[in-house]
């Protein structure tokens, strides 16, 4: 009786086991392959990310103005991520990454403010603005973003800081006001934060 039960149950049990076993084996093999590749590429990927961050930071501050490992010298004061550039141990500039609300989504902006309270440079790290209209904030589409270079933070804080549509001094683009307005007001906010927290940033 028992043996006949086993006989009937056997093919089904074997098949279920076999199916599960093969599925498990395939998962195991593929996860193994992916893990091996992950370990092989991990250091190269970390190095790539480091170099990419360094080169985007170097876009807003000339290499001659700092001598520290700026990528590692970082702190987070929400909502800002800040990288500190120092020259011979003395604070030189704060590189701030912030997020503005554009026409189509978040615009990630990198600004460098010097300890002499000037804008050293501004770049857009990423955005989803309309191609051909709002995307002129990008350096490869237009040199608009370079216009901020060298302005003093006193200008940024003044009433005439804004796009022309709002009575300010800064050019907007034909057909796109919301995007440059978002960038301009974001710079004002981060500059204000920088002026108010300089001591905290460089302590």
């Amino acid at each position: 009786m028992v043996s006949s039960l086993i006989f009937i149950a056997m093919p089904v049990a074997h098949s279920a086991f076999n199916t599960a076993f093969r599925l498990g084996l395939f998962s195991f093999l593929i996860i193994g392959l992916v893990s091996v590749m992950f370990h092989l590429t991990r250091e190269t990927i970390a190095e790539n990310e480091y170099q990419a961050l360094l080169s985007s930071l170097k876009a807003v501050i000339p290499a001659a103005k700092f001598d520290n490992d700026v990528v590692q010298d970082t702190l987070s004061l929400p909502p800002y991520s800040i990288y500190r550039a120092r020259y011979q141990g003395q604070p030189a500039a704060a590189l701030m990454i912030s997020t503005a609300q554009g026409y189509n989504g978040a615009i990630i902006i990198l600004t460098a403010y010097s300890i002499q309270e000037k804008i050293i440079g501004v770049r857009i790290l990423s955005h989803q603005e309309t191609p051909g209209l709002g995307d002129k904030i990008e350096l490869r589409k237009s040199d608009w973003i370079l216009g901020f270079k060298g302005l003093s933070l006193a200008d940024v804080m003044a009433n005439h800081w804004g796009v022309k549509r709002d009575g300010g001094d800064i050019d907007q683009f034909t057909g796109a006001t919301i995007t440059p307005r978002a960038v301009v007001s974001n710079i004002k906010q981060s500059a204000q934060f920088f002026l108010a927290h300089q001591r905290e940033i460089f302590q």
Partner: protein
Amino acid sequence: MATQYRDIIHNGLWKNNQALVALLGLCPLLAVSNTAINALGLGIATTLTLILSNGVISILRRFILAEIRLPVFVLIIAGIVTLIELMMHAWFYKLYTQLGIFIPLIVTNCAIIGRAEVFASKNAFLPSVLDGLAMGVGFSAVLLLLGALREILSAGTLFAYSDILLGEFAADWQINLFESDSGLLLAALPAGAFISLGLLIALKNSLYPD
């Protein structure tokens, strides 16, 4: 034998073209065809995935039980795409930053699991690899055509930023067809992708009715 291979190639490139006839893989096709170079990059990655997944599935076809074939196909394809993504992230970083978010999209390309189910799981290694290559090239050709069309209409250029994909030697490949401030913006937007693909399919069907 030779006829079999010729049929596979003819099927992949034209008769059963995944983009124009089977209408598979529209998600990456429409998302990444905004410029010719983006399209070329995704086309190469998709073709590579198709060749590898067809080859691997064909080798393993006797070990893959019918009841679990779909989860196993998904596993294999996802594994291959992850491997390609990791390798690109490490060794083709510039290309990765350009195509990064689209690489995982290859997994959603139903053309790949479609070829695994219809062809690779029933055929020997060589024909399966050839099928992957032919289907991949057919898909990439439509992707590139769509990318070129949309880039010309929206920006007036062709092969802009080639150096990102192909390295420094391609830096001056960009062809400026006309100067435009904003071009035909519609072509760059998602709606333009649907309209352009629709026009391509209509053109094919009117020139070559079945």
